[in-house]
Every structure is written in C-alpha cells, then in structure tokens.
C-alpha cells in the first residue's frame, strides 16, 4: 500500500495545487492525507473499489480542511478563486509546460481539478464522480466545458 501511495503522490500534489493555489500548502495537504491513511490502516477497504480515487478524495478533503482553517465557514469548491500555481512557480517547471500551467491557473478551481483528475491522474468518469462527490452524468459536461476553456486560454501561446 505504501508503494501505491507513493506513486499517487504526484497526482495528489497536482490536484491539491489546483485547490489550494500553491505548492507548499499542497504538499502539506498530501502529507496530512498520508498521515490520515497510515494511522488508520483498516480505513481502506479494497472491496469497495480502487485505492486511487479513495485516496484522492481524502486529499481533497484535507485541502478543504486547510481552507476552512484559513477562512472559517462553509467551503464551496466551486467558489474558490485562488488560481493554481502562480507565475514564479510556473517558472520552476519545464518551459514546455509553462504555458499549460499558466493557462490552467486562469481557469476556475472546479475546472482545474476535473482536468487534472481526468487528463493528468487518468481517472475514469466514475472515479472522478467519486472523488468530487458529483453525479457521473455531470462529469462529461463539466470536463468538456473545462477542456474548451483551457483550449481558449492556450490560444495566445499558439
């Protein structure tokens, strides 16, 4: 299980960046998720489904908890306006991905996270629905809108 979790670390980190807006907080959220999972080894039941969506759901909850600590009150992920990685952070990643990262950062959080879950983490629609707590039927339309929005944002970069 530890090996599988380590392999999920990067995807979880990128998802957390989309929700929290910076890499350091995102790493803390992934760390919190590891702690939650490893201190309760019986919490994951393989019979209920794969580890990946279950763990990413926990990562997402850890991110929401962090936001709640920063700003007490109910958290609506759809209303989050923090952009993803900022320009300084984007400079750290390869030149090829810089335009992509900057374009992603201009999208709303709900579009960023669904794009990452499908295209970066490679979850199925059913798994995305599980992570986000939405109906499976909503996934395709939300994802399509997100892809069209990202395509628009990438236009200036050619």
């Amino acid at each position, binding site marked *: 299980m530890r090996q599988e979790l380590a392999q999920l670390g990067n995807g979880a980190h990128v998802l957390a960046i989309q929700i929290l807006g910076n890499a350091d907080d995102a790493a803390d959220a992934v760390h919190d998720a590891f*702690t939650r999972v490893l201190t309760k080894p019986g919490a994951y039941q393989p019979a209920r489904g794969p580890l990946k969506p279950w763990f990413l759901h926990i990562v997402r909850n850890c991110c929401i908890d962090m936001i709640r600590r920063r700003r007490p009150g109910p958290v609506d992920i759809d209303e989050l306006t923090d952009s993803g990685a900022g320009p300084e952070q984007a400079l750290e990643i*390869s030149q090829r991905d810089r335009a992509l990262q900057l374009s992603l950062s201009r999208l709303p959080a709900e579009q960023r996270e669904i794009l990452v879950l499908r295209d970066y983490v490679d979850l199925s629609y059913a798994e995305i629905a599980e992570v986000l707590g939405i109906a499976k039927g909503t996934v395709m339309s939300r994802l*399509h809108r997100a892809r069209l929005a990202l395509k628009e944002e*990438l236009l200036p970069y050619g």
Partner: protein
Amino acid sequence: MVNESIRVDEHVGELLSGMVDGELTQQERQRVTLHCEQCEACRNDLAELRALRERLGNSSLSEAGEDTWRETMNEPVVANTRGLGWLLFLAGILAVAGVGMGAFIVDPSIPVGMKLILAAIYGGLALLLISVLRQRLIERKTDKYKDVEI
C-alpha cells in the same frame, strides 16, 4: 448503412470529450463517428481535444518525485515509532528502579539511617526533575515563538 435513429446532423458537443476518453456507449460512439465524417468543425474539435488531453497527460506539473512522497509518508511513522521507543525506554527504567528500590528497602544489612539518607537524595532528585519537566511543558504550551525557526 446509416441508422435512422442516430441524429448525425446535430453537433455532438460534450460527446466529443466522452469519445476522447473512451466513455461513450456503442450508440453514442456511432453517432459521434457518423457526425464527424460529415462535419469538419467537430472533426477538428475532436483532434484538438485529443491533442489537449495528450499534452496535459504528458506534462510535468509537480517537481516532487516518488522518492519525495515516500519520505514524506515515512514522517508520521518515524514520529510514532520514536514515541513508542521513548515509552518502552522509560517503562524499562521505571521497572528496574522499582525492583532496585524494593530490594534496597527490604535489605536487612543496610541500616535504617542510611536508607533514609539515600531515600532523601533520590527523592530530592526526582522532585527536581519533575519540577524542571513541568516548567518546560508550561513554557512549550505558552511560548508563542515556539514555531519560529532561527
């Protein structure tokens, strides 16, 4: 032969994303395929969506590697095992001290006066230790600069 129940003249919109992801039913796939044969705009959209998915999938959006996460994952385990180690160590020390104390008290060859003197010395040391530990704990709880790294 075209299935008449499949509307090939309408744009397929979000079904293009479903097609890219392999998440459509057979009928939906057929509808998208037939429509794209006739509609250049949707054909281009489909190609662009495929390219976009591939680009995002091949990108590197996090600098951290698998080893970093493995180390991160070990931190809580290290903390827990360290706590357990201290607990076992202190329990062992207390057990040895208890047995030694018992043997010392019941030993008839040691005069009572000597027993009282040694009890006062060790009792005093124990009280000093408890006092220092208590002070440290209070400082740790109330020190607002405890998380500041120098």
